[in-house]
């Protein structure tokens, strides 16, 4: 009933098993995913609520191989293209340790290593702290392991940007997932230049106080 009133967007049938896993995981963590969170009054009245769509990643990421094809486009490869034939080096902790590929990748994310989150058994998935694998599309489950307060706030609608309607009886809403705003390899917000400053007459720029004149 609740799922019918507030459907979760499913991109592919393969994502469904991932979704079940996500629900199971979050139940275990004591939280419901946003898409199935019950809404008060949704069942009591006849108003159908529009859906809250979370902008999940569409699939496994692709990495530029450094090569270009015959019309000059970069050749993108999936992780498993290389990682199925190379063995994981457990001594590699940061991108600075690498002598080929992924070099120069900015990595500032606590004391984690690559294999804290990437699954050495199947590089097209991610790895939870308890070694279970999780799809790239459910990356929020992975991040929530450590960032519980952000996940809690996200569940209440207090973390992460959104677009659309505050009133779900009038229209839907699109919400970001973690990696829409945070680079998972360097999640802190970068410095940005602010857009234009005001020029109104009230708020004149603050000048340092003039030196008091001698009397």
């Amino acid at each position, binding site marked *: 009933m609740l799922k019918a009133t507030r459907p979760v967007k499913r991109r592919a049938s393969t994502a469904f098993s991932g979704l079940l896993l996500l629900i199971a995981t979050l139940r275990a963590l004591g939280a419901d995913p946003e898409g199935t969170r019950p809404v008060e*009054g949704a069942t009591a009245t006849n108003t159908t609520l529009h859906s809250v769509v979370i902008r999940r990643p569409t699939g496994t990421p692709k990495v530029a191989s450094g090569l270009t094809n015959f019309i000059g486009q970069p050749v993108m490869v999936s992780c498993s293209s290389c990682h199925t034939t190379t063995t994981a080096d457990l001594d590699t902790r940061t991108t600075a340790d690498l002598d080929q590929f992924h070099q120069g990748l900015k990595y500032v994310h606590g004391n984690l290593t690559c294999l804290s989150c990437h699954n050495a058994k199947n590089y097209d998935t991610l790895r939870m702290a308890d070694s279970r694998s999780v799809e790239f599309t459910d990356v929020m489950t992975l991040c929530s392991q450590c960032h519980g307060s952000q996940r809690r706030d996200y569940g209440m609608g207090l973390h992460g940007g959104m677009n659309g*309607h505050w009133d779900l009886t009038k229209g839907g*809403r699109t919400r970001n997932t973690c990696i829409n*705003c945070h680079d998972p390899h360097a999640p802190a*917000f970068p410095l940005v*230049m602010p857009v*234009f400053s*005001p020029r109104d007459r009230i708020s004149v720029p603050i000048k340092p106080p003039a030196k008091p004149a001698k009397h």
Partner: protein
Amino acid sequence: MDPNADPQKSRGLSRRTALKGVGAMLGAAAFARAIAPLTEWTRDISAEEFVQKHYKELSPIDLEIILHRLEKDTKKQYGADVTIKDYKPQQGVKFGYALNLSICNGCRKCAEACHIENNHDRPSHQSYIRVFEMSKGSMNLEKGNAHYDHPVPQPDKFYMPVQCQQCEHPPCVDVCPVEATWKEPDGIVVVDYNWCIGCRYCEAACPYHARRFNWTKPQIPAVEINPNQSYLSNRIRPQGVMEKCHFCLHRTRNGRLPACLEACPTGARVFGNLLDPKSEVRQVLAHKRVFVLKEDLGLKPQFFYFFDV
């Protein structure tokens, strides 16, 4: 010569007559000066606009005619095809806004979104939002800098966007001598731009510097005009009237989120219905450390600031 004869009279013009003449002339001059605006009104204000009633006294048909006239005026003056509507407050809705100061990074995207959404004057960079750069550990807005122009966020600063707080007891409404501004049932303080006389009392009364005055006729290129307009919100304001943040009522009264919230790249802004206990803004009030600006003034703002943790 008769010693009783009045020397003034002998000259043919008494002091009394002279003063009468001067008085009449002054009176006529003052009258001419007083009606001088009337001789000019046809240039920038139409007869219909001159006799237009207060927003609250307009019948639905009056309003329909006025909205149509405003659309035509916009086409004539700015060359843009716009739709001006009048959206009424919803039953059971009272808007509240919350802003997470732990997250805001001072990028001013909200002010830019307001500038575009609300058809603000382009040269003056007008916006309803002013972002203050404040020293950590201080809450003194007087020392906040709204004109910073360097990469943000700086490590020793925090950033505090200030816009209309939609007070429960708005002092700007109290001081308006012509009742051109009032608080709507959904909590939004609005201005009838056609009724405002531009005295700027409300600007002086607002402790948040939230009101803006149109010193000049707003200049906006036709292609940049947001055509989705409403009477009490983002239609292009005439010169010489006050304006202020209206929580994007042309959007929010249709269930949409305000433009500043959608533009925020950090997700620091939370908007919703204060009367709905499940709304996001109520979650803020229930679970976060919340404060309002200048609480000691007792104006009960409907705009809340909070921190994480």
